[in-house]
């Protein structure tokens, strides 16, 4: 099971009571900015696109900071919506329940920084069907089935099934890489 243990700062942020000033927006931004970019990249976006979406998302988060209760989930939900909207505009497609595929090369800077293992995992996620990739992105960021189900508007069982299929496909992906 792929789980990314929530670190101390994320845990502290999750514990935010909602009282204004409990957690400075700037601290939250620093803790989650690159993680959100990674989350959007895991959804299939390129580095530049993911960074732009993260920026738009955090602008919205700042504007509604005082009323956002679960900011980690909130920014991811908004980022997914932004990505969906961006793809919709780019492709002139009708709204879809899940994110369509759109392989985008990572940015120039990341092209230099990314290790081979990082490139592989992004390629592996990109090869997944959209729903499985979406679930994996949430799982990688440490969210549980119930939380993911709530955010995606599906049942926890559906999330678990998508996760299981994603793991199966990922093991095949890595198996093919190994055989080469």
């Amino acid at each position, binding site marked *: *099971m792929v789980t990314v243990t929530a670190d101390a700062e994320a845990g502290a942020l999750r514990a935010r009571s909602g009282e204004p000033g409990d957690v400075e927006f*700037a601290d939250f931004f620093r803790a989650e900015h690159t993680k959100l970019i990674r989350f959007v990249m895991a959804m299939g976006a390129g580095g530049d696109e993911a*960074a732009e979406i993260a920026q738009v998302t*955090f602008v919205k988060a700042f504007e509604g900071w005082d009323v956002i209760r679960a900011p980690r989930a909130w920014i991811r939900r908004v980022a997914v919506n932004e990505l969906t909207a961006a793809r919709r505009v780019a492709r002139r497609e009708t709204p879809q329940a899940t994110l369509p595929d759109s392989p985008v090369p990572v940015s120039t800077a990341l*092209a230099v920084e990314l290790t081979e293992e*990082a490139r592989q995992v992004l390629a*592996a996620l990109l090869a997944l069907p959209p729903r499985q990739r979406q679930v994996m992105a949430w799982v990688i960021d440490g969210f549980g089935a119930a939380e993911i189900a709530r955010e995606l508007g599906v049942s926890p069982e559906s999330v678990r099934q998508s996760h299981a299929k994603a793991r199966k496909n990922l093991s095949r992906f890595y198996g093919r890489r190994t055989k080469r």
Partner: protein
Amino acid sequence: MIRRLRGACGVGTSRQAADAAVSRGMADVLAALDNVIDDDAALGRISAGLGTSVPGIVPPLGGRTAADRAFAPAGLLDPADTTARAGRPRASRRQLALRAAAGAAAALTAGAVALVAVIVPGAGHNSSGRSADDTAYVVKRVYSALSAAGPGTVAQMTVTTRNAAVSGGTTSAITAEEWSYDDRWRAVTYSAAGQHLYDEGFSTASAYTVVSYRTRTWARQRRSGGPAKLAPGPRGCEREVAPLPLPQPGLPGTLSAGWQPATVAEALRAAVSCGALAVAGRQRVDAVTAIKLTSRPDSVISETVWVSPGTYLPVRVIIRPAAGQQGPWQTADITWLPPTAQNLARLTVPVPAGFRRIPLARATAPLMRHIRVWTKA
């Protein structure tokens, strides 16, 4: 059906192994993003865009160049953003890089590594097939690292010069151990046989000291004036610069401009910014998978620089004559040391007991005759 059977038979990697690979890969993605994205700069742009202030941030500095703007969209690191990082715990790796850059400038300045600024106008070459954009990014990072100034790290270099002409023939190799910190530096030179030849350096009081182990003499003299500098900026791209002076003992106040700290760093910065170097892949340098930068194939001097992927500071530099040319080869291995008392002590030139003090001109004249390296490729 076949696909199902393969799955049922467990073809491929186990799910646990795939899980582990995904975890490692995504951790690498995050590390890469941390290395590329400057959160404070991005936060500053959000703040500026909203026309309001966000508590707890330092707004980005102005003065962007075209190159800066090219990397601006997500808060990608750029020189203007580096100041805003100060005091931020998470940026410790970047700060280390910037502090180390100060040492790099001083180290390169120390004169040992004759970093050759073979500057040819135009875009970087692409002999390795790597994207020119990769080169632009790496060059920008190297430039930023080298542009940072200030004390912080003791740079240590081992410079080996091969095929250098000395009085009475050609030596196979001369090795110099060099240390630099801020505007202080020291170089200890050894012959090919490992014989201690001489020791020289500038102290904090700008006093130049040279000790000759051959003649068992030493000299010291204060140097007047600050380090000379090359004209900075794009003007450097308008010319093709000859190799900078190779290490030679010099006279205080008469040292070649190429020896001065700011000058060598400036020359390297000019070289990278003018497209004289291009990314040629990655290679292992000791324990680091360093980014390799090479000079143009048609350059007068062949130069290869390996930079750390974390700090973008040079970890090894090799300079050799172009094909068909004669001249010395130089290899410089660079390491970065914390400014502990022990490391700072390496910047002091010790004068052994029993050595006789003589006027500086008398001390340096034999040295100048002793080591005469080729300065023309």
